[in-house]
């Protein structure tokens, strides 16, 4: 089932939680709402679920207006950040809850409930825990039970609020891959909220980047990472070096450097910010043909597949971060305190918006 979000506004007192939000989630897609805490992503998810009411705007499920539809009739599955399992019920009863509370006419028989609950517990690979109570489970197990419980009512839409937020790093990684596979099996339209860009980039079909109640960008993980639509998205998705300068006739002038850029050919001497990812900083022993800053290696962190090098520019002492492959690092044989040249590639420029 597709979800259409039209002109949603939500205020909490004087705080503008959501500001004219428009978003389409096509059937079967896995969409991530990504943003820092307080950006309104959870509020939007709760409005889709019907747990919160929007001040203005409408929500359409499969083309029909669901704005005033009761939570119970929206046929959504919701997975809460802290699982919200019923602590006094066994795992089995937790998963069976949604079936047991149905009116007698539509309630499945006891045998059918058993069959379906066990099928779901097998799906989340936790059938052996059916008789346990939630406090007896680990965080990852609880999260999977919460998912099985949400799926038990056969929802048309699955909504997940920071589904892996409370788990440790290792479990989080395993579980998000598992969620991706599960989604590929079930093809249920899903929206999940996260503040972890790595998680969004790895799991989602599409990412909605939000900031301060607004949508900054909607796009595939590739798009939002490679073509960030705003400085915010650039800074939020991964590490970035930021330079201040001016743009004039297709060139970015950063202090003594004039860098070629793809756009802004008509722009006339306008203040701007330039962004370069650390892996687009080339470190050279000799000055090449391209413009480069001279810098001193101030810190080297060689743990992991990439070597992180901090360089201090000699003209204004600011720090530039570079990421090198291990091969390149060995080739250069960099030592702390050595003088090198750094050459930014793939510079992306955002003109300063006059206030």
């Amino acid at each position: 089932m597709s979800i259409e979000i039209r002109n949603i506004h939500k205020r909490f007192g004087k705080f503008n939680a959501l500001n004219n939000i428009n978003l389409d989630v096509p059937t079967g897609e896995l969409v991530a709402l990504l943003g820092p805490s307080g950006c309104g992503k959870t509020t939007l998810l709760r409005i889709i679920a019907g747990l919160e009411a929007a001040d203005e705007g409408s929500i359409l499920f499969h083309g029909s207006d669901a704005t005033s539809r009761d939570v119970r009739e929206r046929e959504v599955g919701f997975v809460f950040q802290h699982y919200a399992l019923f602590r006094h019920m066994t795992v089995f009863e937790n998963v069976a809850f949604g079936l047991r509370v149905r009116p007698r006419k539509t309630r499945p028989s006891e045998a059918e409930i058993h069959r379906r609950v066990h099928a779901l517990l097998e799906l989340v690979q936790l059938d052996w825990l059916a008789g346990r109570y939630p406090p007896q489970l680990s965080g990852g197990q609880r999260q999977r039970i919460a998912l099985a419980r949400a799926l038990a009512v056969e929802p048309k839409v699955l909504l997940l609020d920071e589904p892996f937020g409370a788990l440790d790093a290792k479990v989080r990684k395993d579980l998000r891959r598992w969620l991706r596979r599960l989604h590929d099996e079930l093809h249920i339209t899903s929206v999940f909220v996260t503040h972890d860009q790595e998680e969004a980039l790895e799991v989602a079909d599409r990412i909605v980047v939000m900031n301060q109640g607004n949508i900054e960008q909607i796009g595939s993980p590739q798009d939002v990472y490679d073509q960030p639509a705003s400085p915010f998205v650039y800074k939020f998705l991964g590490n970035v070096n930021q330079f201040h300068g001016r743009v004039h006739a297709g060139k970015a002038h950063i202090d003594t450097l004039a860098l070629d850029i793809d756009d802004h050919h008509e722009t006339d001497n306008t203040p701007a910010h330039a962004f370069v990812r650390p892996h687009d900083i080339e470190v050279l022993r000799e000055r090449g043909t391209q413009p480069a800053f001279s810098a001193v290696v101030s810190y080297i962190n060689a743990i992991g597949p990439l070597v992180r090098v901090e360089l201090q520019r000699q003209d204004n002492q600011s720090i530039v971060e570079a990421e090198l492959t291990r091969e390149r690092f060995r080739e250069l044989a960099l030592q702390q305190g050595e003088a090198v040249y750094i050459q930014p590639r793939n510079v992306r420029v955002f003109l300063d918006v006059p206030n």
Partner: protein
Amino acid sequence: MSSTVSHLGHYQAKVARSRATSEPAWIRWSLIAIALAFLSLFLFIPLAAVFTEALRKGFETYIAALIEPDALSAIKLTVIAAAISVPLNLVFGVAAAWATAKFDFKGKSVLITLIDLPFAVSPVIAGLIYVLIFGLQGWFGEWLIDNDYKVIFAIPGIVLATVFVTFPFVARELIPLMQAQGKEEEEAALVLGASGWQILWRVTLPNIKWGLLYGVILTNARAMGEFGAVSVVSGHIRGMTNTMPLHVEILYNEYNYAAAFAVASLLAFLALVTLALKTFIEWQSARSARTTEQLSEE
């Protein structure tokens, strides 16, 4: 030499640590002695006195004082007052706690303050309020007489006064508990399609059962033991509007000490049962909270 020094250092560290965490023996023992003396003076000795005085003239006199018609009627009235006010406050307390802990609305803090009002008002004033409203010269006095309803100096007045003084017990017990538990489980149930009643019965009540029971027991103890408010509205009609505490007072004023203490011993016994139940419930809820924590840490 160096080893001696390090030994010494180690020893000193040990002494310092034990000094840092505990007082010298004489302070500890005198504190314990003071606490015990205080408890004996104000709790154990009076409690023992009640039972000794009650049984001073023998077991038969004791029983006779309890099965005498006026005493039986007082016991009956006390049980009736408790049997009406406890369920009323149970329902009200759950409703008030549910509303204030799970929802946000205007005037919420005013409501919570109002719930606490009976704690702040002297029970005698509480009784007087009802006399002023329902009494002969009260607001509704004439209308009540015309329609032949008796509130003051009758059972309804006693029940009203009891309900008033026990008003906050259940709600006060539940509000912090329900606030701490949050509303995620209720929201989860809602999304899964449960109705309001189903959520209350299947999710909310099971989560607060120990706190609720605790509140009920406290309410019951207070309902049976209330003196001041009930005294004002009762009229002290023997065999008619006397509750147990009032009956004790009458007997005592008539110098019938054995009977007074016999009835008093029943109330004291009720207090002991209440304490035992309260301890059991605290132990139970602490145990379930502890297992929850332990297991979730694994």
